[in-house]
């Protein structure tokens, strides 16, 4: 069932396009040699170029160009061998030159496509219109002083990739899936860290609504939304507002708006009121950006395996379900973790452990995949102990817990705690005999046909053996003795 907003006059379809600003991972800025690192003291990572001093000129950073090309390739997009920079002219206190150097008419990357998986198991293609390089502005701090806004130019000139989608998105869920997939691709490529909290990925959300079969109606742009959840909420709020405007006989005005996540509503953005004439023109301080075929080919050859390809391979090579594969490839580090665990072992068992106990442990400890509480090598070693019958599956869970707590290897824990599985038939016989002797009534019930009680005897025996009995041998012995 497609997402729709139920208004008084019926169902409204939501049409969404996203402009994602992704901060390029690089040492220095797009057009200057100052640091692009996050979080420094105000105005310490600013050159005269970044501060728009008289006579200063931009010089482009090769790595930023390479990152844009890698990203374009990762989005299955057209790479333009000749692109240009333009000036987007408007005044803002944290934009020192009075213009933003961007790419308007001739972006470095053309059309591409992103495949997203939806919760109903379907896959949808979202078109990418373009990707272009541009410089970020500085930062305005409005809440430090009663009558003044403070300006920090550390971010001024940091390279951004603006990735513009087609208006192919039809629901908050699709928008969320698109953003998560995009972030996953960028992180795989190492071109953007995708950290929305620090602002290294933020979205302008273009929203309109329409009745089925209609052409597009007027859209509004909700600026600078900085989390996946907020994007989804903003779409819901803005679409609902627009439906109300249309249904009350008004018409939606094209404008830029801001999303207030506390009130779950959007409002017009005052500072953008007259910014609709950007007077773009070719940046005369820069020459055309010409990419050599060989250079692009070399970048292409060095690309890592991307989520979609990896997912397909995981299914083919390891026989994983679509769901498990999708979960495991979402983060590159998770996929690598899984592959280390699975190497030379039963892949399905490895997948179960990684998506099950391991993810639970991440959750519980609040750790991330980049700094996991246990290593993939240790988890693999644990699986080996199960496979060679050193420990049984139940004990393995305890060993896993101990590994998370102590960081020790599974072999050490098994040795220290004496958790080796008991495969000595004499010990098992003795334990089984004791249980049968202690429960004559249960034995009678079982023999009279209450088969379900078999589990009771297994549990009691295992308990008596402190969990270390070999389950197969216990079963075998019980079957014989109870027969």
């Amino acid at each position, binding site marked *: 069932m497609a997402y729709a907003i139920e208004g008084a006059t019926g169902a409204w379809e939501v049409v969404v396009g996203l402009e994602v600003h992704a901060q390029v991972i*690089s*040492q*220095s800025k797009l057009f*200057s*040699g*100052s*640091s692009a690192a996050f979080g420094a*003291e*105000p*105005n*310490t*990572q*600013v*050159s*005269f*170029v*970044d*501060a728009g001093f008289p006579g200063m000129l931009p*010089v*482009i*950073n*090769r*790595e*930023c*160009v390479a990152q844009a090309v890698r990203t374009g390739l990762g989005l299955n997009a057209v790479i333009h061998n000749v692109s*240009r920079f333009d000036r987007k002219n408007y*005044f803002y*206190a944290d934009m020192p030159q009075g213009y933003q150097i961007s790419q308007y008419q001739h972006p470095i990357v053309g059309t591409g496509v992103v495949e997203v998986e939806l919760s109903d198991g379907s896959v949808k293609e979202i078109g990418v219109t373009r990707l272009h390089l541009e410089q970020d502005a500085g930062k*305005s*701090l*409005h809440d*430090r*002083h*009663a*009558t*003044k*806004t*403070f*300006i*920090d*130019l550390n971010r001024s000139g940091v390279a951004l990739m603006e990735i513009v989608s087609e208006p192919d998105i039809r629901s908050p869920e699709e928008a969320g899936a698109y953003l998560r997939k995009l972030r996953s691709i960028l992180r795989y490529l190492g071109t953007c860290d995708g950290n929305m909290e620090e602002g290294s990925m933020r979205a302008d959300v273009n929203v309109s609504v329409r009745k089925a079969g209609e052409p597009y109606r007027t859209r509004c742009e909700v600026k600078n939304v900085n989390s996946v959840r907020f994007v989804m909420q903003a779409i819901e709020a803005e679409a609902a507002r627009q439906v109300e405007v249309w249904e009350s006989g008004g018409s939606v005005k094209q404008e830029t708006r*801001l999303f207030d996540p506390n009130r779950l509503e959007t409002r017009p*953005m*005052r*500072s953008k009121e*007259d910014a609709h*004439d950007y*007077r773009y023109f*070719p940046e*005369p301080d*820069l*020459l*055309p*950006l*010409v990419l050599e075929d060989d250079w692009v080919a070399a970048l292409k050859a060095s690309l890592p395996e991307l989520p979609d390809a990896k997912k397909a391979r995981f299914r083919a090579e390891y026989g994983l379900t679509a769901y498990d594969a999708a979960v495991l490839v979402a983060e590159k580090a998770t996929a690598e973790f899984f592959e280390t665990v699975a190497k030379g072992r039963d892949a399905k068992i490895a997948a179960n452990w990684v998506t099950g106990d391991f993810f639970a442990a991440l959750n519980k400890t609040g750790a991330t995949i980049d700094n996991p509480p246990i290593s993939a090598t240790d988890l693999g070693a644990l699986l080996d102990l199960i496979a060679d019958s050193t420990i049984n599956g139940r004990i393995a869970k305890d060993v896993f817990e101990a590994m998370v707590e102590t960081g020790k290897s599974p072999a050490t824990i098994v040795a220290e705690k004496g958790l080796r599985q008991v495969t000595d038939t004499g010990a098992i016989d003795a334990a089984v005999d004791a249980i049968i002797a202690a429960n004559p009534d249960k034995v009678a019930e079982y023999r009279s046909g209450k088969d379900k009680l078999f589990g009771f005897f297994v549990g009691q025996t295992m308990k008596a053996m402190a969990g270390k009995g070999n389950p197969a041998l216990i079963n075998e012995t019980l079957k014989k003795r109870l027969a």
Partner: protein
Amino acid sequence: MALDPTTIRRIATLARIQVDDDRLEPLSQELNGILGWIAQLNEVDVDGVEPLTGGAQMAMKMRDDAVTDGGYPDKILANAPDRNGAFFAVPKVVE
């Protein structure tokens, strides 16, 4: 394509130049004089001509990605008309 006072007002706002009302009419005449003279370009047949954007006809060199600049907030802030600590300061902006 006459530049009427309303257009002048719009252009001046875009350019962030405060213009008094009594200047609009004379400015309109001056600028129209210049634009009228510029209109001679309409005589030129430019069909199929690729626009020339700059004075240099070469491809762009790219620099290496290394931190070689910045780290001098005092110099950045030295000429500031108003500042507060390490920040530039401007009249409060409402977004």
